[in-house]
């Protein structure tokens, strides 16, 4: 008998490449969930890893950094917060803007 597989529809689950059971330090939601404002996880609510190795939902840390009192420091370690890859925040910013016109599938 020879078995030929024509088609294989698989199912996979994605996760952020983060330690298990960890939550965003700001909104306290799991990384795999969204920040408190977003509806859809993943691309629309990405994570941001700081140079201090603390990561947050991007929206969460941005709204934190926008506050005066934050002094642009990481809320966890009080180090100045810088994204690990320099272009990422800018890119993400652009991303949020480009996302506006896009309609959700629903």
């Amino acid at each position, binding site marked *: *008998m020879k078995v030929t597989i024509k088609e294989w529809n698989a199912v996979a689950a994605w996760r952020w490449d983060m330690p298990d059971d960890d939550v965003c330090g700001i909104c306290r939601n799991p990384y795999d969930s969204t920040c408190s404002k977003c509806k859809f996880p993943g691309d629309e609510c990405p994570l941001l890893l700081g140079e201090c190795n603390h990561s947050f939902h991007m929206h969460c840390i941005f709204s934190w950094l926008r506050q005066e009192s934050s002094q642009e420091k990481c809320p966890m370690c009080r180090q100045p917060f810088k994204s690990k890859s320099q*272009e990422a925040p800018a890119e993400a910013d652009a991303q949020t803007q480009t996302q506006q016109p896009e309609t959700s599938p*629903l």
Partner: protein
Amino acid sequence: MDHATLVFASVFPVPSLSHTTPTPVATPDLGHTAPGSSFGGPFIGNAGGAQHRAVKRTQAWSTATRFLSLPNNPGSGTRRSQRSADVEGALYYLLVGEGKSEEGEKGLLEWYTNEARLHFASFVKPALKELWEKEVELRTAWDVLDETQRTLEQVQNFYLQPFNDHILPFLHQDATNKTIRASQLSQTADIELMDAASWKFERHIHAVFAHCLPPKRFSKTLSYILYDAGCRLFRFYVRQDGVQPSTTPESTREVRDRMTALLSGLERVGLGGNNAQRAFAHAMNQLLETFIASHYLKVDWFSKRSIVPDLRVWVKDGFCPLVELAMECLRCDASDVQPTELKQWQEMALARLGRGRVANLFDFVIHWDRSLGAILDLKDYLKLDGAKQYLTSNFSQQISRRLLHPGATTTYILNVYISIIRAFHKLDPKGVLLERVARPIRRYLKEREDTARIIISSLLTDPDDEVGNTKFASSGELSYEIAMEMKKPFANREEADEEFNWNDLNWQPLPNDASPDYKKSKVEDVIHFLLTIWDKEDFINELKNILGDHLLRCQDLEYEKEIRLLELIKVRLGDEKLQACEVMLRDVLESKRINGTIHATGDVLTPEDQGQQPETPAGPGPRQPRPHRPTSSVPSHLTPSTPILKPPEGPTLNAQILSSFFWPILRDEEFRVPAQIEALQKEYESRFERIKGMRKLRWMNALGDSTIILEFEDRTEEFEHLTPWQVSVAYAFQPQPGEERAAGGKGKKGEGITRNVEQLEEMLQMDEGLVHQALAYWVGKSVLRAVSPDTYTVIERLDSSTKDSDAAAAAQELAEVQAAQTTTVKSQADLLNEKKDVYTSFIVGMLTNQGNLPVMRILMMMRMLVQGGFPFGAEELRGLLGDMEGDGKVVSLGADVWGIRK
């Protein structure tokens, strides 16, 4: 008395033989002759004075009674046509003259009454008694009554004639004489006296008549006769009595005449009094009942209209005239029917009709909407006092008896519930009744485990679909009604709080019989009712599970129905809770794009792929930073198997990428998929990770489906929609590297590779249960054959041996049963089983530390303290405790309290 006697009597006025000769005639009391008078004969004169009066009276009595005495044969009543002078004298003497009865003496009237009574007793009564002795059969009822009436009338005439001829004139004469003398006042008094005499006599006779008939039997018979007449007049066909409906339709006039004749006859002989009226009332009562049950008032299934107007017209124009006619015959005081009475009767009839309809309401509801007529009837009925109460309580009983029992499938209950919603909406647009009636159903549906699944999967099924239709018929798992609801135009209503909408000029107060939690539902919105059976959270949880399962199985890549369903539920339950569902839906939609992107990137590994970038779908892929995409990282050996280039040679791998956080807990068995697929998965994974930075994929091999082609020595077959483990097992029956030689060396014709379960388990690292399931499936498809227990071989050549096909049939059945049990989503029960050890040790610890505890308290503690929560209810906890009791860990102390076994 024969002629001779008559002749003799005319000459010798001697008392006839039948009468005792009064003594004064036989031996006349001569008295004492006065001095100087001659010693005389019998008719000397009445010098005797007072004592002579007695003699004279006795003589007159004798004459009069002899004259008036009734003959033995009631037939010959013409004898006493004229009375002789002495009779007249005697009568006059006794009735109005001096011989009028005085105190202590017997009056002639009384005597005559008595005479009539005696006569009746000896001659007429026996015949009547015979007539009435036995139960009167319905068949003969008319005849018996007619006969009775005739006889009595005859007898009455017979008795009355002498009375009228020979007694009344004297009284009358006397009265007129007196009138001449006396004033107006006494005249009326005297005439009254005379009438009183005749009235009294009649009354006596009537009493005798009435007395000789058995009263109950008589009134029953009469009542039946009247009822029968009514039935015939209105042409009701009542068969249950054993009365055959006459084949030739009688003329109603005939029946009516016969009835009126009988009634007035009965009235004449004094049988028309209260008794007859009561009988009549009975009959009319029954007649009304019969009419309501008759074919005239059957539910109008065809033109679907109410028959209540017919009923009212009948009561007014059919029933009332009959009543009036009969009352006239019976000479009731007021023979006219008052308008208020008419209205009362109409309401009475309506109430009965309504009760009749309520008794069958459940059937009407089931046959909605052909039963519209019945519902409209009920609508009229509901206007009466107490009708609503009656309807709800009665219908609730019907529901609990006929619907809410374990024998009814949930689909059936749901369908009936929908019918109830629709029917009651018609019945009572305000929805108060529906709310009351539906409460038990909703409670019951909530308890059924499959309710939510059926509702949601029905909502997701297309009723016009060919395949769908067969599904409705066969499995009974889907409700056609619900699916049809989905097709209806979808009205988007804003749900403003109406209580505070002060600008609403059409505002109306809530119905006064509404319960506190009554909510006005303006529209007959079945889906709303169905979706609000549960609490929002429960329902959404359920929805999440079902939708997850459904999306993973769904074949339609556009997911139109799912999107619509979600939209629909959002409108009813609010957006905020449905995030998980929306994410799931987006995941499956997004997966398509990701597949496209990944295939595209995998496809073109040449440098020109930069030019392709704008063409890639607007999915998230291109947005990601992809500066370091190492083309070399795709292992070159995979390139030949990339799907799009050479589809026939390598499999296509499509993936659904789930945001696992938002999906229900899915089944997750680990096993090894075919090497080919494993490689593809790796490749897919690496590309995905490149596109979506910082993210990992985890394959859930127990989910998904696959299409394969099997090539045997003599045939090639294609299988679609296989589960991954089925494919993996089939794949394992191919020669492994290194094994190839040996298999080929055996070279046995028609036999392929043989493997046993243990081998497979080891090769695939698969759960034994799954291996068995897959093997059963393949045996069912005549691909494998069990050569010995737990050992299977490939059927390379399919000869038509019955043994194989029998085994295949049996295995197929088994496989189908198993397939039905597999779902993609883990059930609550699975979850409980999985975590049983944790819970058990927790409970043991808690009971050891805190002593005995009731179930509710254990539940509360567990909900608060167990890691990951305790998403179960008291029932599951009780089950768990029961299991633990079986293991000897805890012991039930009664009253829901549990403790540690010591």
